[in-house]
């Protein structure tokens, strides 16, 4: 995003809407620090700029990645849905993506608030790839990898900044202790935050298969989360 310095009247209305504080006043005019801007579009949508000075410049590769992983209204070609992720557990009763005995894992690097450079996302990807995970093919973050087996990203994109990028994969639930251990080590090697979540089928008796693993690892878990209530049709046929 850019601000036309000829049109800006210096009102500062746009400043608070930037989620990464990339807009500041300079010589009484608002300026966007281009390398910090994540192309989320919030200033353009929300500031009601009286000078009509905010404008979306043309975006080419690799800058377009910022918009895909930061602007919620951008539809990723891989998933076909708006946002940074996939249908994940939201449609599990019709896709069967996460089967009994499996756990879906999403590592959302940069969320909340801090944003992330893709070199930090790559560090996380390489750490979990060493365990032999298969990243979700239709997740837009997976498309940024030159080698999804190792988690290596394309070299030209590593310094791009985004609001968040989701590393998504599933594995056998017995592998959770290994994943937790790897994540604890990797967390100390990045300069931003990440949010971690697990998706799991509920057993017929109502119990939660991930609970003993989380408890054994001594991890914090939120009392709130998402529940797929199984209304989608046709239901996936399971063996």
């Amino acid at each position: 995003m850019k601000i036309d310095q000829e049109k800006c009247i210096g009102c500062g209305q746009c400043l608070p809407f930037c989620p990464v504080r990339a807009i500041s006043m300079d010589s009484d005019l608002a300026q966007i620090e281009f390398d910090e801007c994540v192309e989320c579009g919030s200033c353009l949508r929300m500031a009601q700029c009286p000078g009509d000075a905010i404008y979306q410049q043309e975006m080419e590769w690799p800058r377009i990645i910022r918009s895909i992983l930061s602007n919620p209204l951008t539809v990723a070609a891989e998933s076909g849905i708006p946002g940074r992720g996939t249908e994940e557990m939201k449609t599990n009763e019709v896709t069967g993506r996460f089967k009994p005995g499996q756990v879906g894992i999403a590592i959302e690097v940069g969320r909340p608030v801090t944003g992330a450079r893709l070199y930090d996302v790559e560090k996380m990807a390489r750490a979990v790839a060493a365990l032999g995970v298969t990243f979700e093919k239709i997740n837009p973050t997976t498309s940024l990898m030159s080698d999804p087996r190792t988690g290596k990203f394309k070299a030209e994109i590593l310094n791009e900044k985004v609001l968040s990028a989701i590393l998504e994969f599933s594995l056998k639930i017995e592998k959770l202790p290994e994943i937790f251990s790897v994540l604890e080590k990797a967390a100390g090697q990045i300069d931003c935050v990440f949010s971690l979540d697990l998706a799991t089928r509920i057993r017929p008796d109502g119990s939660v298969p991930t609970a003993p693993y989380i408890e054994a690892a001594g991890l914090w878990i939120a009392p709130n989360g998402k529940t797929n209530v199984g209304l989608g049709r046709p239901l996936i046929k399971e063996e």
Partner: protein
Amino acid sequence: MTHTLHRVGEGLEEDYVILMMPSKDINHKGAAPKLRRYLEMAMEAGAIKIGDCRNGNEYHQGGVPRILENLQDQSVVHAVFTNPEAVAKALRLFKAAELGLCVVVSGIFDRVEKCCGEAGLKQHTINQSLGRWGRTDKLPPSEILQLSTMCGHGMVSVGLIEEVIADVKSGGCTAEEGAERLFGPCVCGIFNPHRAAKLLRVMEKN
């Protein structure tokens, strides 16, 4: 797209989001009128806000009727609720309608489970938050984080929250007006202004 997950802080007992969506290439053809019906039922049950990830919230589309008019087969829609009774009512209506699209409820797990039971539904799959890892020292104070995490896409900025808190404290706007200002940037329309106003009122007194 875990945008309704990872909410933290006070007031979660008055914070529920129901998401409704088709699955691409499985049941998305002809889904738009079904999504519209879901949203109508959600409003009948007491939703305080509705939104569409593909086209934006009421602020961006110019009102609730526009959200309903502009729905597409691959829209992902939401409704925000402030109590489990209304959530249970919505689920009962959804179940009876048999529209066949996927429905996900975000909120405190045991209360959502109870809502499912009251509607004759069972939990199929859950998504659990194991919190924030890494450079958590870079995060803002909890009073700001509890507001910012109501937009999982990170559109409700720390700067805007700080400005709204300052305005509420100085008497420049009411907590309710401030909460509506914070709702605007959340393009999907999942931000809960009812909970936000309560949180702002607590900050106003401190």
